[in-house]
Each structure stands twice: as structure tokens, then as C-alpha cells.
């Protein structure tokens, strides 16, 4: 890290830049409410003021901390490549050209777009006047013209992100940075720019992603959507992991900051050396890279109806949801399938009548299908028309149509799936105790659950002693597979209210806490309200054999069928990473997971003692970063419930 970067990093970590900002609202709520999203955006454009960090070459941060609620869409990957190749001016001219033959709604769309883009140009000009020298020079060309250097490309990208924030986009992802930036990286390399200079620029850009993040928190601070995808396989089966991908990883390693969150696309052809490099990042303890397996994700997306070219171009949304850049406006997180709730319902409503376990399983399936219908019915589409937001999707530009009209190539929705292990464990316990051993009657089980096991200690213990998902035990793992199969099949033959596909997933988001609060005691021995496992992971209370068993339990099912995203999450004690032996073996473990057909993996280097001490003495752990679900955050800034869940997860320790 150069001295410049160190100084910039310091300004950001200490938050000194925050004193430059204004807390005055740009619009009062009432004023916001009577404007449409584009009018709100224009008001923000007019009011925003430039400010810079010392020695800044990237710039573009929010001056006003109180952004009025504009568009509000989120979790998609914008068409950065379009703006990088054409410049905003190119798109502007294209729209003007198209308007010659447009009429009605399209013409109106075009007029608004032109007006908005002119606002953007004016804003950037205003910005340029005050910008430090090097940034000013870049702004002579971008964003109007296409960038001619890596630096100019980074500034244009930064502008895209900043504008989306101004438009109140909830999660702004970065997509396949190493792919769309590569031509500009190449330009610099051909010009003789050194690796170190490119690394420094990349670091500066990464730093800019850590400014303002206090303004963009989702459910918790850190949940801001800034995920970046590196590497991958192209349609010809070739790896596209390039020199720039490597530089991004180096930059993240040196900076040791939350953003951007790195996702690595890998496959059976990925060399162990890359997993080894990724392990360097894991060792930092920030919970990334998250690995996505092309060999599973791509066929999975194709099976969902994505064209092969688009499937090969997938990236991730804010957390883990596989989405296609530029052309899709999928909403991959509209709802959540609560597996334990469904099994619990079957226990309460159907178990007493079930003559066999198979009959009971049929009832679970029926309950799950009912739940799918209810979820589909309850989906609320909040797409607020926004011409400016639409400009980040190629089909909207091509057809002069708002994204909310459904003009994008894909408008699918996705359901998370939470508590899969708790649910499979509950089914296994029912199978073993009620049907195989006949040691517990359906009535007694129901009563015990209703009373949250009060007065049923030994019954609860016998449920706890039943096989648990994560120990490579087919007895229960097959039931996890059964639930996923039911979920997958149920959604395969259903469509949402707009007639689009519904993608089943294995992610939990915050629902491992939120949904769990609403579920009473379950047949796996879990007490009422107790949290589920995070995403695609064992229940937090399960006694586990170790990481090899966990991986096998969670790779048995054909994951192409349940491909909305949601990683297996494993906690590995930080001492494992202390030397080359440990590092290489973690890399081998990741590779083995992929080879066995896992779809997504996220490892945490964790030390429970550190976390417990951090709860007691937060002042000593200001920089402590942990992975929460699909994102990483500062431990101190998390609500206690999220802190405790991380502490409660099994950490695999090696001696």
C-alpha cells in the first residue's frame, strides 16, 4: 500500500470526511411524496454539492446525508459496460436518434431521459469545476465521452454508482468488474502504466466504495449491496479470470475493508492456486471471497430459462443471488420459504392421521405447495417507475421503456429458503421417533411442541439425539433433499402474478432470525423462536462431526434445481490459517466442495474468544469485521442478535 493510499484509507476509516457533509434534507417528506422518482432525482442532482477527500482522484460522494426516497429499486447489476464503451453522451445521442421515430409513451420516456442526462452532464460539470487536478482532467472526457484510460473508466464507474445512490437505489452492486474494466486496464498496460500504478488506482476506487456507506445501510450496517464478481467461465468453457481479477484481490487484501465484497466464480478447471489465493482473503476474517460454482450455477440458470450466453455472464446481487447483468431486472429476494414452519404445520395438522412416514412426507409436500401459493399471492411488487433507473438496463434504452413495464429480458422473482437443516432435522426426528421406533406418539409430540418442551425434557433430548443434517447421514440428508426437491418442483410449475418464473433458493438473508421468531418449538428439538441456521447451513445447535461431513451433507442434492443462491456457510477457527499447511488445506477444502457439486460457499475465519471479548470491550475491536449473511459488517455495529448468532455457530477448530 502506498503512502497516499494509507492516508486516504485513514481519512475513510476515521470518518473525518463526514464533517464535510450537510444534514439538511434536500426535500421535505411531503415534497418528496408529491414527486415521481425522476423528479426527486432531479431535485437531488440540483442540490448535491461536490466535496473531496485529500488527494482524491475518484470523488463523487453524497454531500447531503438525508437522501429523499426516490426510485428504491435494488439488487440488480447495471449495464456499466454500456456506459464504459459509449460514454453517457453515446447513450444520450442514441436516445435522441431513437426519439425521431418514437411516439406516445416511448417519446415521453425519451424526453425525460434526455432531460435527466442533461441534468447529469450539468452536475458533472459543476463537479469538475471544484475537482482536484487529476480528477478534473478525467472529467474533461467522462462521463460524456467513453473513457480512454483505466483511471477515466474508474471515474465513470464511480459516477454511475453515485448517480444510482442519488436515485435512492437500495443496493448498488458492481457486477463483473474485472470483465467490463479489462479493456481499460489493457489500454493502460499498453501505454506502459505499471502494475503498481494500476493497483493503486484500483485501491483508490475500492476506498471510494467505503465512503458514505453509513448512509446506505440495509437491514444492518454493511448490508449495502456492493458485491463484486471476479473470474468465471465463458461460453466456450475458457476461464476469464485475468490480471485485473488478480489485482482486485490484491487490492482487497491490502485494504482490509468491507467493500467491495469479493465473489469468485470458479469451476472444476479452476487451479488450486486460485483457491489458495482466495484463502488469503478468507484469512483476513471478512468472510469473503464467496465462491460460486459455474459448473452448477450456469446449467441451473439455463434450466430456469436463461439463454446460455446470459447464464455464462451471471453475477451476484447484493448477497448471493445469481443474476444476469445489463438485461435482467429479476427481483431475487421478494419472499422466503420458511421450511421449518411448513414441517411444523404438517406435524400439527397431519401427523396424527399419517399412516406411514411416507404419508407424512406427502403432507409436508402438500403444506409446502400451499405455502408457495400463499407466498406467490402475497408478493407485493414495488417497482416504482423511474426513467433514470431504467437507463441502467439495455432493453430499456433500446425500447425507450421504463423497467417497471417489464421490458427487460428477464423479470423473474426469487424466493429464499430458510431453515432447511432445521426442517430436515425435524422430519428425521419424526421419522425416527414416531414411525421407526414408535417411541413418541403424534399427540405427545404435538403437546410437547405446544408447551415449548416444558415438562418434556427427556422427550426433547431424544429429538435432539436424532440424526442432524451436517453429519453426512443419509437418513436426514435425504429429507433435506426431499424438501428442496418439493420446493423446486412446486415453483417449476408455478408462475408469479406477472407470469414470470419463480426461482427457488437456499439463502436466508436475515430470515434466520426474523422467520425463526415466528415459529414455535420444532420437532428437531429446537425451542420456540430459536434462530435457524444461516442460509444453507446446519442448525446452529447441531453437534457436528466436522467440515468434511458438513460439506458432504450439503452437496448431495442436485443444486442446479435450487439456484436462486444461498451459500453453505462454515466457520473455521482463525488459527487454521496460521501457516502454509492450513492455508493450502483450506484451499483444497473449497476445491473439494466445488468438485462435489456444491453451488456456493462462504467461509469465515473466526475465533469465538475474540468475538466474546469484542462484546465486552468493543473499544478494542473497532476494526473487527465479520460476515453476517450475504455481506460483511463491523462487529460492533451489529445488533446483539446477529452478534450472538455468529458466536453460536460451530467453529471448526484444528489442533
Amino acid at each position, binding site marked *: 500500500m502506498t503512502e497516499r493510499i494509507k492516508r486516504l484509507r485513514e481519512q475513510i476509516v476515521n470518518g473525518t470526511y463526514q464533517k464535510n457533509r450537510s444534514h439538511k434534507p434536500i426535500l421535505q417528506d411531503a415534497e418528496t411524496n408529491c414527486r415521481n422518482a425522476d423528479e426527486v432525482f432531479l431535485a437531488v442532482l440540483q442540490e448535491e454539492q461536490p466535496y473531496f477527500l485529500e488527494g482524491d482522484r475518484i470523488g463523487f460522494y453524497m454531500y447531503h446525508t438525508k437522501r429523499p426516497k426516490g426510485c428504491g429499486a435494488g439488487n440488480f447489476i447495471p449495464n456499466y459496460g454500456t456506459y464504459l464503451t459509449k460514454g453517457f453522451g453515446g447513450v444520450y445521442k442514441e436516445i435522441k436518434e431513437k426519439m425521431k421515430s418514437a411516439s406516445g409513451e416511448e417519446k415521453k420516456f425519451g424526453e425525460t431521459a434526455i432531460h435527466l442526462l442533461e441534468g447529469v452532464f450539468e452536475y458533472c460539470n459543476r463537479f469538475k469545476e471544484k475537482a482536484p487536478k487529476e480528477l478534473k482532467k478525467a472529467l474533461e472526457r467522462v462521463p460524456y465521452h467513453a473513457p480512454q484510460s483505466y483511471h477515466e473508466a474508474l471515474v465513470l464507474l464511480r459516477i454511475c454508482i453515485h448517480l444510482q445512490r442519488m436515485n435512492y437505489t437500495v443496493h448498488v452492486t458492481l457486477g463483473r468488474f474485472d470483465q467490463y474494466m479489462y479493456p481499460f486496464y489493457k489500454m493502460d498496460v499498453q501505454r506502459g502504466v505499471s502494475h503498481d500504478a494500476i493497483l493503486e488506482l484500483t485501491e483508490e476506487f475500492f476506498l471510494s466504495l467505503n465512503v458514505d456507506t453509513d448512509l446506505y445501510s440495509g437491514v444492518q450496517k454493511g448490508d449495502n449491496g456492493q458485491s463484486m464478481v471476479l473470474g468465471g467461465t465463458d461460453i466456450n468453457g475458457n476461464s476469464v479470470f485475468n490480471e485485473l481479477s488478480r489485482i482486485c484481490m490484491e487490492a482487497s487484501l491490502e485494504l482490509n475493508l468491507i467493500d467491495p465484497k469479493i465473489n469468485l466464480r470458479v469451476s472444476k478447471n479452476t487451479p488450486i492456486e486460485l483457491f489458495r489465493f482466495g484463502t488469503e482473503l478468507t484469512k483476513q476474517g471478512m468472510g469473503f471471497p464467496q465462491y460460486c460454482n459455474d459448473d452448477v450455477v450456469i446449467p441451473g440458470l439455463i434450466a430456469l430459462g436463461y439463454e446460455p450466453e446470459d447464464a455464462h455472464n451471471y453475477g451476484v446481487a447484493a448477497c448471493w443471488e445469481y443474476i444476469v447483468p445489463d438485461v435482467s431486472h429479476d427481483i431475487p429476494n421478494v419472499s422466503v420459504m420458511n421450511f421449518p414452519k411448513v414441517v411444523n404445520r404438517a406435524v400439527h395438522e397431519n401427523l396424527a392421521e399419517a399412516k406411514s412416514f411416507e404419508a407424512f412426507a406427502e403432507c409436508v409436500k402438500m403444506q409446502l405447495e400451499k405455502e408457495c401459493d400463499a407466498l406467490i399471492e402475497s408478493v407485493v411488487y414495488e417497482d416504482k417507475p423511474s426513467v433514470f433507473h431504467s437507463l441502467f438496463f439495455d432493453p430499456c434504452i433500446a425500447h425507450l421503456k421504463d423497467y417497471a413495464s417489464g421490458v427487460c429480458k428477464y423479470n423473474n422473482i426469487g424466493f429464499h429458503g430458510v431453515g432447511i437443516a432445521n426442517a430436515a432435522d425435524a422430519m428425521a426426528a419424526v421419522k425416527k421417533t414416531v414411525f421407526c421406533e414408535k417411541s413418541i406418539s403424534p399427540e405427545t409430540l404435538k403437546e410437547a411442541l405446544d408447551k415449548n418442551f416444558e415438562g418434556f425434557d*427427556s422427550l426433547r*433430548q431424544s429429538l435432539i439425539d436424532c440424526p442432524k443434517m451436517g453429519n*453426512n447421514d443419509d437418513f436426514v440428508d435425504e429429507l433435506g433433499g426431499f424438501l428442496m426437491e418439493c420446493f423446486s418442483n412446486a415453483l417449476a410449475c408455478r408462475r408469479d402474478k406477472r407470469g414470470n418464473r419463480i426461482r427457488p433458493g437456499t439463502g436466508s438473508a436475515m430470515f434466520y432470525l426474523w422467520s425463526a421468531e415466528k415459529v414455535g418449538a420444532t420437532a428437531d428439538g429446537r425451542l420456540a423462536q430459536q434462530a435457524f441456521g444461516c442460509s444453507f447451513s446446519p442448525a446452529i445447535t447441531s453437534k457436528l*462431526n*466436522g*467440515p*468434511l*461431513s458438513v*460439506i*458432504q451433507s450439503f452437496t448431495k442434492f442436485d443444486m442446479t434445481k435450487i439456484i436462486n443462491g444461498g451459500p453453505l456457510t462454515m466457520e473455521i477457527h482463525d488459527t*487454521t490459517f*496460521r*501457516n502454509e*499447511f*492450513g492455508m493450502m*488445506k*483450506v484451499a*483444497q*477444502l473449497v*476445491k*473439494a466442495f466445488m*468438485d*462435489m457439486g456444491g453451488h456456493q460457499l462462504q467461509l469465515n475465519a473466526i475465533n469465538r474468544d475474540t468475538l466474546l471479548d469484542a462484546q465486552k470491550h468493543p473499544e478494542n475491536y473497532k476494526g473487527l469485521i465479520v460476515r453476517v449473511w450475504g455481506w460483511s459488517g463491523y462487529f460492533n455495529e451489529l445488533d446483539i442478535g446477529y452478534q450472538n448468532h455468529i458466536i453460536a455457530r460451530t467453529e*471448526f477448530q*484444528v*489442533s
Partner: protein
Amino acid sequence: MNALGRVFSIEEFSVFDGPGIRTSVFLKGCNLHCSWCHNPEGQSKDIQIVKSPNGCLNCGACKKAALLLTGKEELCEASVAACPNKLIRISGEDYTAESLCDRLFKNQQFYETSGGGVTFSGGEPLMQSDFILACAKLLRGKVHLALQTAGMCKPEIFDRVLSEMDYVLFDIKLVREERLKRYTGADANIVYRNFDTLVKSGKDFVVRIPLIPGVTDTKENIADIIACLKGYGITYAEAMPYNKMAGAKYTMVGRTYQPDFDPAQDVYIPEKEFSENGIELCIL
């Protein structure tokens, strides 16, 4: 042969017990009494009740349950279920070779892709050599086998087990006979005879040196070890510095930690001495 093996832990993904991704089997019972041992569970060959002190509510449920079952307050099997915070467990489980190997085979795919396998550790695994041999019969040729040993056993047993292993992690603690005896109880004549056999067998092996302050990290002992390794032309060894948390587990098995050295003293890491003598020392 229906040898039962007494195991106190099976660890998947044990990264410091040999090449590749491995599962380590920790066999219960040891014939040494190193006072720095961080695994007191491994010392006794008996099945033990282990109670973790952290989080104990002092509610007495464990003692009550024991009293009910045995008439004594001494913790027993019944205490395990009685503890509301699940702090009590039983250490030591008997396996047949078949049942253990079934479990070990389950991770076969990891061993194959990573060049890993199974490691028998302990305790002193050679105290259960019949069991290891019974397992080796089932695993040999299919799984890479490693042994982690302090080498204190009858030469014929050592030779027999060695012939079934692919890799050995051999502890070298102290070289001088009287000091080895005093601190570990081992007989240097036997240990170094077995070490000699190992080196000459042509098998893959690694030397493991626990660095204990004032005991094994002394100038004299380091010089002895270096001389020993140089004599064999060994150019690589691994050192495990004393773990200051080593004492933590003693109360769990109802013992008091009584190290016969000063555990607060800093460990000396003799990297310089080793490298000057052409031996790479890897610190684990």
C-alpha cells in the same frame, strides 16, 4: 481379531497432522507423562467424564443425577444429560475397526482429491497397536495412513505398525536419556532405536519438536536434536511452541495442572540454530 479401539476424538480436516485433507483419530491412553501435555484426556486409557467449567451454573443437577444413579456425587453418565448447559460429556468411545473405518471411509473423496488420508494420533496410538493394525487391514491401499507417535513402544510393535503406515509424525522431545526419562517417562534407548528404524525404513516421515520453555528449548537440547537430525541427513523439521492454554483442560478431567517447568516463561524458537545447520524449521 476383534480388537476394540478406545477413541477420545475423531477430527475431520485436521490440518496439521500430515499431508492433504485428513481425518485424525485420537486414541485414548498414553505411556508418557509430559507435564506440558495439552490433551490430558488422551493420557488416561479410561473412559472419563469431562466437564467444561465455562458456563457452569453451579446448579448441582449433575451431582444430583449421579447421586440418584450411583449413590455418590461423583459425576457419571447420568450427569451428562442432567447438565442444563450441556457442559458435560463422556470422553472415550470404543469402536470396532469396522465401525471406525466405515466412518473414516466416508471422507474418502476428500483424501483422494487432496492427497490426504487418516492419521492415528493420541495419546500414544501405539498403545493400541492391535487396533491400528486391524484398521490398517481395512484401510491399507485405499487410504493414505499416518501415525503420530512419541516412539515409546516395543521395537517389534513399532516395526509391525510402521510397515502398515505411509507416513509418520515422530516426536523428538529430549535427547539426553535422563532428561527424557525425567520429563516424559520415556526410555531414550527405545525411542531412538525406533526413530532409527523409521529413518532407515525409507518411509516418509517428519520430525515434530514440542518447544517447552526451559525443558526442550534449551541450548543443550536444541544442539542435541540438531546433531541427531544432522547425523541422519534430515533437512526439515516442525516445531510446536508450548501452548499457554495447555493447562485449561486439566480441570475438565478433574485434575490440577502441575507443570514441572515455568509455563509463563517465553518459548525460545531456535530457527537460527536449525537454519545454520541446514535444517528448515517450520513453526506450526
